[in-house]
């Protein structure tokens, strides 16, 4: 069962190989609910209300507390290069919310009994099980210059792959320390077992520029594939490269 919907401004594809097709509907329902709750672009979202001072810390839902603590963790870990609070702008936890919400959607599919699926949210991927017995999900990583080419293919069973890159939205990642667009890296791909970690690590590494290469590689439980501006590839030895 395959389905694509646009949620959070992203095309989200579900490829469900077993389990009830209604599971996909509940996963999309959760993603729409997460968008309504966490979007800084919706005036009545919890994030917007917090940003306007209408909610105190004590009044926040546990989910928003979790998202904000993840934001804080990566902000501290990157010395402020990654931040949900760029000076002069409102609170924007989107960089954490996306991976976190999609990971939870994947958890819901698993809890509902699905054992083989691939969830792709705007290029950030969670997989479970095997698409065919004995074979991993083949996750191609887009080439930073050539939209129809791949720079590497990963073989993943239960795992998450996130890529942060410049090629589509222009320079959409800012260094929180300077407020300026970052440079130094063309594309960061992070493999982990949790998309909240993979996605945020990729974004934070990007925000660090060249320093992000070693920073990301040193993150626990993360394997990286990073293309720098000189088009050199830096990859972790433990990266699950799939030999095609």
């Amino acid at each position, binding site marked *: 069962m395959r389905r694509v919907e646009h949620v959070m401004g992203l095309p989200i594809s579900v490829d469900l190989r077993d389990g009830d097709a209604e599971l996909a509907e509940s996963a999309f329902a959760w993603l729409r609910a997460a968008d309504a709750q966490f979007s800084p672009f919706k005036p009545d979202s919890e994030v917007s209300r917090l940003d306007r001072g209408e909610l105190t810390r004590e009044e926040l839902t546990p989910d928003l507390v979790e998202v904000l603590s993840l934001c*804080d*963790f990566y902000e501290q870990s990157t010395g402020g290069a990654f931040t949900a609070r760029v000076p002069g702008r409102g609170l924007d936890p989107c960089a954490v919310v996306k991976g976190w919400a999609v990971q*939870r959607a994947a958890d819901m599919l698993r809890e509902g009994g699905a054992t083989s699926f691939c969830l*792709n949210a705007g290029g950030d991927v969670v997989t479970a099980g095997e698409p065919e017995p004995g074979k991993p999900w*083949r996750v191609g*990583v887009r080439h930073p210059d050539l939209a129809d080419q791949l720079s590497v293919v990963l073989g993943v069973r239960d795992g998450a792959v996130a890529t942060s890159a410049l090629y589509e939205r222009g320079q959409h990642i800012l260094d929180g320390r300077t407020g300026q667009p970052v440079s130094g890296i063309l594309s960061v791909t992070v493999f982990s077992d*949790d998309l909240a970690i993979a996605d945020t690590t990729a974004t934070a590494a990007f925000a660090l520029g060249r320093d992000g290469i070693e920073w990301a590689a*040193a993150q*626990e*439980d993360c394997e990286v594939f990073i293309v720098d501006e000189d088009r050199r590839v830096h990859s972790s030895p433990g990266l699950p490269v799939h030999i095609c």
Partner: protein
Amino acid sequence: MKWAIPVAVLSVAGLVPVWLYSPGAAHEGEINEAAAPPAQEQQQTQQQTTAPQTTGSAPKTTGSAPKTTGSAPRTTTQQQQAQNRTVSGPAVNTSEGVVQVQVTLQGTKIVDVKALRAPNSEPTRMALPLLKQSALKAQSADIDTVSGATATSGGYKQSLQAAIDSAK
């Protein structure tokens, strides 16, 4: 997941030489194979793998934050764990600063050593972390999904992922 796994205490004694070792040829990203301790030491570190570690490892500077994600149910990586497992050593004060390493084991073989914390000194920078460097290549291959392909709706329509979604 990573925060839910009990982390084994690994004696760092056998691994400090890893960091102290200053490889002559660790430039331009070949895997620094010299960073793996000799076989005998591997055996020892295996045997010294003991109780769950309660202190957080270095990247978790806020502690509380990662734990909150641990509440989400995770049923992942059983197959991967069967092949590889990682253990983090304690943070150890050395004359050069605090060192903490993480090793990845395949069975009893150490396949990767990563510095969770390392002093900002020259030998460390040369040796850690272990990253391979290579030239960027382009390939096309049979795949099930694409990472990094589709940030916007307009981009999606022309993307590989859209082609995959409509093909099946």
